[in-house]
Every structure is written in structure tokens, then in C-alpha cells.
């Protein structure tokens, strides 16, 4: 099985990039670390770690209230991070429309608890898709338990695309549509613009889960046309502990407070409180300051590479991976999702023979190859696919052909090991 190795033609220089990621030069089980799990969490370049260390070592203080130099500086950096992140996704007014949360999940919950509770009743419908991550399902289920509304799901077709053929009837009575911009299991880049147009035409709002989109493709909330958009720092080269919500300013402005506490108030009396302006109204307590600064640096790193270049790299690499897996393993491997790499993000989920994904992952680990096995927080989708779990390799800016080859080699080993 001679590998089909060819030179990459895109402008992403993985060799150079790998040097920025200290973890990629560590060894696992005596092997080079082959990290194919960026869809779960990306690695962090040294620039991001250094930005946070520098912040802590030179100017850390709590933000927004201090009159002294290091506190003002901390505030400036934190607010600058908001603007940088907002611009990165094309927010028209980032200083007011970006709310920092602890992760993408909190961002969806914010919309559910605040907008949802104020706007949904038991006669309404929330429309999700069968490929949503639990983060864009369970918050609506919790709310539905309390308010009694109906949740519907847009089905997927056999190739892993949204099946919009019945969309008009699905949309009847719908007040909110929740849709992922890119599936963390199938890889599918959904055609949200069409869906959003239809949703808006029946007066429904649309929340887009961008967690798997923002790290990989150029994102622009104005072009997408959605009403709410969430993403998470740790999947886009940033630190853990931070995510964000973008919302249309008028919507956010009209929404009631969610978490209560410091920062989010304008005044507190014994008998009640007055909420603060946007975006502070939704940022209760001390925010993830260092994390925002780390995320700002992560965005700078991505912008330096260029999102279009990153996209070209991933199309090339994912295409290569699909080809290699199919040519090596033929019918023994089932790859989920669209077969056209143009329609996919960086993830490649598969079933291999009748090996259990966790067993595959365990064998790969002994070769230093890290893939994820499991339901990927998408259990309704697992049921649709009629599997309990899949194996998932996910590719990012630091991955190259050699990593794909390591995956292929590892699968051979797994096959041999279990000998079934």
C-alpha cells in the first residue's frame, strides 16, 4: 500500500505551523503525536500562551471598574478582544453585540433562558436539525419542559445533507430555528442561507451554531443572515474557558438579563435592579479576561494565515483523507457525510469493519494517533445513523499528509490486532 503522497498545493505551510505548537513536538508512547481531534479541541500556538502569560505577568487586574493604570489596560485589552472577535465574524457592532461566555454551550443557553423564556409559549415550535450537537438541543429541551412548546427536527438525507424538501410544513408555527453551520460528526457544511431565508419569511429567528465553522471557514454573520451565532474559543486555537454569542443588537437589547451579579447591573436596590447596557447586561461576574486576550491572539493567528487559505488546505487534506481511506479499505470502511470535500469541514467520521470505535481509538493511541470515538454529543444523530458511536478523525491547520498516513497505518494495525 504505497501512499499516494503528493505535495500540498495550498499556501498553508504545515511544517512551519507545527513549530508554533509545542505539544506537537511531544512524544506519545514513543511515537510522534499525531493529533486528529481538533474538532473536540484544537491545540494552542505558543503565541496564544504567551499573550496570556504576558497579560498575567504585566497587567492583570479586574476589569471595568479600576481607575489605575493596569486595570485600565486590562479593560482595554478585554474590550479590544471583543472587537477583534466580533470583526472576525463580521459583526456590524462588535462592541455591543459580542457577549463573552464560558463556551458555546453557555451561549446557546443564554439565548434559551433569556430570549426563549421571554418569547416562546406552549403553542410555539422550535425547529432543530437531526445533526445538531447536544449544545443546540438540550437547552431547548430544558425550556420546552418548562414552557411546553414543541421541538421538531429537520431530517438529513443519506449523504448527510439537510433534507429541506418538507421545510415549508416543518416551519409551520416555528418561532425559532436552531441549525449548525457545520456538523461535528458528518462534516456537512449546511446550506444555512436558504434555510434562514425561509425561516425569516415565516417570522422565525435563527440561531446558528458556528462552533465547527468559525475555526475553519471565513464567517460573516451579516452574509449568513442569522439572528444569533455562537462559537467557542478552544476549538479555534484559543484557550478553554471562553466562548461567545453574537446577536443582533436590537434583539439583545430587548432581551431580559440571564445570569445576575456584578458587571451586568446599572443599579441594584434592595427592591430590584436595573440592568446595564449591552454587552455587559449578559456578562455577570468577573469575565474570562485572560481567556479573551488569548482568544484575540488566536484570531490574530488565524487571520495571519488567512481563513481562505485554511479552507483551501482543509479541502485538500480532507479530500486526500477520503481518497486514501476509501482506496485502502474499500467496503470495510463506511465514511459518514458528504463525499465532496467542498461540502465538508475538517471532520471525517467512519465505521471500520465491525470494530468498536473505542477499540480502534485505543489501538491508534498506541501509535500516537489521537482520534475521537463516541457519540460526539450528537446522540439523536447517532440514532439516525443507527450506530452507537463513530470513530472520528478531524483535521486542522497543523495536519498534513503524513498524519493521514499515520491514520491509515493505524487502522491496518487495528484490523490485524482484532483479526475479525
Amino acid at each position: 500500500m504505497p501512499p499516494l503522497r503528493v505535495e500540498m498545493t495550498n499556501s498553508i505551510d504545515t511544517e512551519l505551523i507545527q513549530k508554533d505548537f509545542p505539544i506537537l513536538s511531544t512524544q506519545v508512547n514513543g511515537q510522534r503525536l499525531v493529533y486528529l481531534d481538533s474538532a473536540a479541541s484544537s491545540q494552542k500556538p505558543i503565541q496564544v500562551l504567551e499573550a496570556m502569560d504576558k497579560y498575567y505577568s504585566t497587567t492583570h487586574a479586574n476589569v471595568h471598574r479600576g481607575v489605575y493604570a493596569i486595570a485600565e489596560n486590562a479593560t482595554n485589552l478585554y474590550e479590544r478582544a471583543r472587537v477583534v472577535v466580533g470583526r472576525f465574524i463580521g459583526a456590524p457592532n462588535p462592541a455591543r453585540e459580542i457577549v463573552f461566555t464560558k463556551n458555546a454551550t453557555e451561549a446557546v443557553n443564554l439565548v434559551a433562558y433569556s430570549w426563549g423564556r421571554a418569547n416562546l409559549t406552549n403553542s410555539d415550535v422550535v425547529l432543530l436539525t437531526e445533526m445538531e450537537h447536544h449544545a443546540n438541543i438540550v437547552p431547548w429541551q430544558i425550556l420546552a419542559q418548562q414552557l411546553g412548546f414543541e421541538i421538531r427536527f429537520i431530517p438529513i438525507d443519506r449523504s448527510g445533507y439537510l433534507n429541506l424538501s418538507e421545510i415549508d410544513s416543518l416551519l409551520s408555527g416555528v418561532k425559532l430555528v436552531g441549525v449548525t453551520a457545520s456538523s461535528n460528526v458528518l462534516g456537512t457544511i449546511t446550506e444555512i442561507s436558504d434555510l434562514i431565508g425561509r425561516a425569516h419569511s415565516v417570522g422565525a429567528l435563527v440561531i446558528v451554531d458556528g462552533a465547527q465553522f468559525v475555526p475553519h471557514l471565513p464567517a460573516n454573520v451579516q452574509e449568513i443572515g442569522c439572528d444569533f451565532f455562537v462559537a467557542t474559543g478552544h476549538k479555534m486555537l484559543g484557550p478553554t474557558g471562553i466562548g461567545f454569542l453574537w446577536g443582533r443588537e436590537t434583539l439583545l437589547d430587548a432581551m431580559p438579563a440571564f445570569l445576575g451579579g456584578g458587571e451586568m447591573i446599572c443599579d441594584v436596590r434592595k427592591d430590584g435592579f436595573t440592568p446595564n447596557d449591552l454587552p455587559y447586561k449578559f456578562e455577570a461576574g468577573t469575565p474570562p479576561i485572560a481567556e479573551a486576550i488569548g482568544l484575540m491572539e488566536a484570531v490574530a493567528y488565524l487571520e495571519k494565515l488567512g481563513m481562505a487559505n485554511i479552507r483551501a488546505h482543509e479541502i485538500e487534506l480532507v479530500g486526500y483523507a477520503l481518497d486514501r481511506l476509501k482506496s485502502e479499505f474499500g467496503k470495510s470502511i463506511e465514511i459518514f457525510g458528504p463525499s465532496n470535500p467542498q461540502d465538508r469541514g475538517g471532520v471525517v467520521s467512519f465505521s471500520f469493519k465491525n470494530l468498536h470505535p473505542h477499540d480502534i481509538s485505543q489501538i491508534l493511541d498506541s501509535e500516537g494517533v489521537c482520534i475521537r470515538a463516541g457519540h460526539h454529543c450528537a446522540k439523536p444523530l447517532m440514532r439516525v445513523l443507527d450506530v452507537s458511536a463513530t470513530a472520528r478523525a478531524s483535521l486542522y491547520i497543523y495536519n498534513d499528509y503524513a498524519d493521514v498516513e499515520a491514520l491509515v497505518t493505524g487502522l491496518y494495525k487495528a484490523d490485524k490486532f482484532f483479526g475479525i
Partner: protein
Amino acid sequence: MPGLEDLYREIILDHYSNPRNRGELEVPPAVRSEGFNPLCGDETVVYLLLKDGMIDDIAIGGRGCSISSSSASMMSALVKGKSVEQVRDFTKIFKLMLSVHEGTLGGDHSHPISENATQNIGPARELGQDLGDSPDPSARLLTDDELASLGDLAALQGVVKFPVRIKCALLPWNTLTQSLVEALGTG
């Protein structure tokens, strides 16, 4: 590095210790508006009496720091006897003076430690204009005439170098705008 003298000009300290037009007016005929600075909890109260489109009388209440108090005092002195039109112009010019310009945030205004901290921290330095109290995308430098029209208030120019205090200087003006709206029965 901005020193204290950039912030606390003598004239500011003077208005702080001897605030003009401090007090209350009878409501009605005057209107009363209050504004909060959520950062510190301070409050400015503006009493405004209009007559024939002119500021017939104005009084200032509430409590605040030297910057908000002196801004309120100088504002009251400036607007008294002026037309509503003129007051609107002053407000625009004053806010323009306090809008943060490109480069100032990461640049010359900042303390040495800020420069250190923002070095290499991504695109921080270019973003000054989008931050904090700069909702006005048309931020520009004032003309000499405009600056002169503000009188004593020009002394508050240095506040831009201390971003947290900008809200202090604006507080009385935002409260005044509110009371104008109320007095004119519009909005």
C-alpha cells in the same frame, strides 16, 4: 505618559471646589433628570428651565468625582442663556472632543506598562477607535473654533487619555440631553 496635570487642569479643580449653579429648581416649571454612571454609581441631577427655546435657568445636583462635578459646573455655566440649538452643538462638539481616536488607546496615551502589555498582543494597537466611548464613527479632531467655543470645558480634553474617566466627563452632558428631551416633550 500622561501625568495627573493632563487630567486635573487647574480650572477643573477650581470648578470642583467652587461648583457653579449647584442646587435645585422648582419642578415644574423646570424639569428634573438624573443620570447614572454604572461604573462608579455616581449620579448627576440636572434641573432645566426652558423659555422661548432658550436655557433660562439650570441647576446641578447629585454627587460625583472631580471630573463629573467640574464638567457639570462648566457645562451649566456655558449653556445658561444659550439656545437649545446651540446647546445641541456644544454637546456634539464636547462628545467629539472626548471620542477616542485611532492609535490613542494603544499608543501615546498609555502608561508604559500598557505599551509593554499590548506589544505583540495581536492586533490590539490598531483598534483604538472601536473601543469604549466612541460610538461615533465620524470621530475627528476638533477645529480650533470648535474647541474655543467650549470655553473652560476645553480643559477636559486630557480626559481622553484616561479612558475610564471619559464616562465621568460625559455624565452631566448625557443627563442634560435627557432633560432637553423631557423639557421639549419629544423623544
